[in-house]
């Protein structure tokens, strides 16, 4: 499989630029050898970005009294896992964790399957109404969740699905992002593959499933990771549709505990934040190449 290499960005009209002359000046210039203070400034920036996480991790293993001590300590004087113990024993975080996983995995699979199906149809097949479908799907990229959640709640209530997994999952099973990403990727694959498969006698569905889809690995990975993280971090819909604790997802549980009667247990809530944040950070670090690609392509956070 060929990977896309961008064309050289040089627009060389031959006379205005004299690379031979300009080159030495460019190299000796600070443009090429950044001064040390730039590294200092960037390091300070990264430190500011990272400190809240460092402090979260350190505080989550302090006993409650130490988290509240004045002045606050940075390194834990007493190391303890009691906050995590309480999360898992008293506050049923394992349940929320499983709920988050189930919802995110099913939502991701749905977006991959249905997104690549429609994306392929829009990119490689001819049918009437194609343009209209594409415009409508893309048009909804701008619609915020705040606009649809009230009627969605009415709909899901009438389907009898509040406080159920299907209720949590169905509204997110398909989305415009998947179609957009997959269509773009399919457009980049050569039509000759499809024609060759047709000559070989493959049916249209078979061409999609066995010939084209296996070539979309990077796109599927990008979409899968984006969708999983978005679902994992999703808040408003699970907040309104999950009504009893056994259906809370992690962010919902964390938010409700942090404004409820546990709101004063600092160490406990910070340990909860660790449980929400660390799995996706680990996932992200493992597959960040795809993820940063996706962000640069779509800007979706």
């Amino acid at each position, binding site marked *: 499989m060929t990977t896309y290499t961008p064309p050289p960005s040089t627009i060389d009209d031959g006379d205005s630029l004299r690379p031979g002359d300009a080159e030495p000046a460019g190299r000796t210039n600070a443009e090429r050898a950044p001064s040390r203070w730039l590294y200092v400034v960037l390091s300070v920036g990264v430190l500011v970005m990272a400190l809240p996480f460092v402090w979260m991790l350190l505080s989550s293993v302090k006993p409650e009294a130490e988290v509240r001590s004045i002045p606050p300590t940075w390194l834990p004087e007493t190391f303890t896992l009691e906050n995590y113990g309480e999360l898992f024993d008293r506050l049923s975080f394992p349940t929320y964790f499983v709920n988050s996983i189930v919802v995110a995995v099913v939502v991701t699979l749905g977006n991959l399957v249905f997104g690549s199906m429609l994306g392929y*149809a829009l990119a490689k097949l001819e049918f009437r109404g194609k343009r209209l479908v594409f415009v409508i799907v893309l048009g909804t990229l701008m619609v915020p969740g705040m606009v649809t959640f009230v009627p969605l709640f009415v709909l899901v209530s009438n389907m009898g699905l509040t406080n159920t997994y299907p209720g949590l999952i169905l509204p997110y099973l398909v989305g415009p992002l998947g179609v957009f990403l997959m269509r773009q990727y399919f457009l980049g694959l050569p039509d000759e593959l499809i024609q060759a498969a047709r000559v070989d006698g493959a049916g249209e569905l*078979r061409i999609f499933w066995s010939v084209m889809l296996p070539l979309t690995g990077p796109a599927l990975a990008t979409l899968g990771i984006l969708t999983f993280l978005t679902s994992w971090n999703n808040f408003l819909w699970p907040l309104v549709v999950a009504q009893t604790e056994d259906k809370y997802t992690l962010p919902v549980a964390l938010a409700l505990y942090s404004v409820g009667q546990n709101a004063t247990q600092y160490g406990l809530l910070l340990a909860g934040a660790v449980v929400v944040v660390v799995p996706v950070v680990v996932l992200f670090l493992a597959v960040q190449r795809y993820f940063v690609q996706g962000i640069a392509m779509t800007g979706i956070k």
Partner: protein
Amino acid sequence: MATATTAPASRPSPVGGSPGTKRRRSLLQRRQTRTAWLLALPFLLLFAAFTVGPVFASLVMSFTDMRSTDVRTPFAVDLAGIDNYTALFQDPLFRKVALNTAIFVAVGVPLTMVLALAAAVGLNRITRLRAFFRLGFYLPVVTSIVAVAVVWRFLLQPDTGPINQLLGVVGIDGPDWLGEPSLALPSVIAMATWRNLGTLMVIFLAGLQTVPRELLEAAEVDGAGRWQRFRHVTLPLLRPVLLFGAVITGIGYLQFFEESFVMTNGGPLNATRSVAYYTYDQFSFGNYGYASAASYVLFVAIVVLTAIQFRVLRPKT
């Protein structure tokens, strides 16, 4: 799903002479159309039910007096005309939350863009450790807003929070960031900026890498200083990327909700309550029609802001 529609053996040979060409194409076209709809239908049905339908339902509901008690009989509710909208704009609390949201966008978007652009320019100039620094700036983006809002709430505590402790080191007596009405919204904006600048940084960095070095070198030969080169070469070329960044950040910030839900509960004195928060509140009170009207005001604001940004940042020709 992997099953082929037709058995290959039973099909007429696709490589026919010229008389068969026309017929073959139309057969292929029919098969394509059928396959396309087969592939599209599952998506479109779900999408119609759970996305497109609700967008229109929300608009219709905003002109009704629907309440939570009407959930089972949504078609029996009465039309209320534009009453919800007039009530919205007469509610001092709505005017307050609209102002808060406007401030959040007006301050947050430029702040995030400038910091992200600075980080991107810095990252673009260094050669070593670039991936590490990019990762560092980017990390907050992948985390849950709820979780980082919890962390920031404790970071900003007046006595036990490390931020005031750090300020104490340089002799500043830190205030109660989230407790003072005048400081709460700026604190929430700071947190949002911290979380979101990585998204823009990655986009800007990609944009910077498309700026041809030859242009910069030519400008340098012509005697342009570093700032002039940035101002007159790099920035104009980044225009589309800046527009994209401004639009997505603006859309995101117009909807801010989780930040204040977790950090301040919308307080103190509604200082951090947003339009989205107001919508959620009205939904919780059971005022579905009214909540829909509030959400549509937000939607219209998003469309208008996007249009303005396209106009302002459109390439000058």
